[in-house]
């Protein structure tokens, strides 16, 4: 019994469990037709890679790390106050004003409130919703704005 194309694609991507992989590997030893199909799939993978990547210049990621670490250092000093109002707004939408007032203590920092908000969302709405709310809170705030006063 020859494996289907989908099975061979998954085999070439090492996505099958070990038992099934071994069975297919044994079959390929004896079946030239399926071996040829597997070779064709490997060639198609190269064509697909070429199609999706084009001929891109190599991009240097090292600069980005420096910017991220610099923002993290500034974050510890002074996270943006705008985060407080955004986090509070999200708590008000999903829980209410009472919860927002309760969570936002007198001296709470923006990053502390953000952490509490995300923990609350994860507990009551699930992880996916918490991530989406985090995205909503951080939307439009770039590296500089995350740690600076937001000018009107």
């Amino acid at each position, binding site marked *: 019994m020859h494996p289907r194309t989908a099975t061979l694609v998954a085999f070439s991507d090492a996505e099958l469990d070990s038992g099934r992989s071994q069975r297919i590997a044994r079959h390929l030893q004896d079946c030239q037709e399926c071996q040829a199909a597997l070779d064709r799939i490997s060639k198609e993978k190269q064509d697909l890679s070429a199609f999706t990547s084009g001929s891109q210049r190599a991009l240097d990621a090292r600069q980005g790390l420096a910017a991220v670490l610099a923002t993290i250092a500034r974050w510890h000093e002074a996270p943006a106050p705008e985060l407080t109002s955004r986090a509070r707004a999200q708590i008000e*939408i*999903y829980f*209410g004003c009472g*919860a927002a007032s309760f969570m936002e203590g007198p001296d709470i920092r923006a990053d502390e409130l953000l952490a509490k908000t995300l923990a*609350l969302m994860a*507990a009551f709405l699930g992880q996916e919703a918490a991530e989406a709310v985090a995205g909503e809170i951080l939307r439009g705030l770039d590296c500089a704005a995350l740690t600076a006063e937001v000018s009107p």
Partner: protein
Amino acid sequence: MTRTEDWGGLESAPRWIIMVTGAYLVLGLFALYVWYSAAQRLSMQTPSAGAEGLSVTGMAAAQAWLCLLVFRSFQRGAPLRRVWLLIMLSAIAHVAGGLIAQASETAWLLNPLVPLGSTEQLHRTGLILSGPVQMALLAAGLLAALRVLRRFGFGVRPKAIGWAVAGILILFALTRFGETAGKQFTADSAISLIRTLLLCVLSVEALFLWLSAVRMGRGLIAKCWRAFAIGIFVIGFGEAALWALGRYFPGWLVATLDWYVWFPAAAVFALAPAHCVAAVRRATGRVTRPSSDLPVRAFPRTVPAN
């Protein structure tokens, strides 16, 4: 970007439930009024009575489905995953019990449940599932929910008036308990006793849930937990009112009004997960919001055009 219709999608489930419930109740009251005005000369099929009525079962099915949607939004290990599992099982027990009880009452030669046992046994099984089993699972789920609410600071100690309200329900439950205990002990009376005890537990839980929801505010999650409290209060006070009415009015009227306790309660129990589903869908952006909801500042960095 355009806003989706306010009545479209799962996020509008709470509105639909309220609308359907309201329309159903109004129609039922109108039909009851017409029938009563016609001096009962017309034959009228009263809505199936009690917790196992078909319409109540249908609403419980909606609740079960909505609970499943909420349950699936939590990952393994999340504190509220177990809560919603228990509440969903409670709704499923309600549906199963209602269907079995209704089917067992059907005098039908081809009734598929007949080989499983006598209709009386099946009816009792249905009553147990849609009664004590459903209430026990709900009580367990809400107790777990109260623990989570307390962990996040939403636990509130009730004041005297709160205890007084819950006390009324507990007093009613104990009175019913005393009445039933005084009679010959049968399977049905045992079921009734267990239901009564569970109603006491649920009444106390409803009090704490209500206060936690009040502390939260008026957001979607607060509405969810508030709905559970309201549902329990509707059942408790509704049954208390019917019990009191039963002393002064004929039994057929009280049996008819029974539906007007259980159907709204089932609708409110369905409303609870509906609010949670609406909250999750709003958070994950599956609701199309108008462009005015997007932040005024776009990503500020300028990039040279390619």
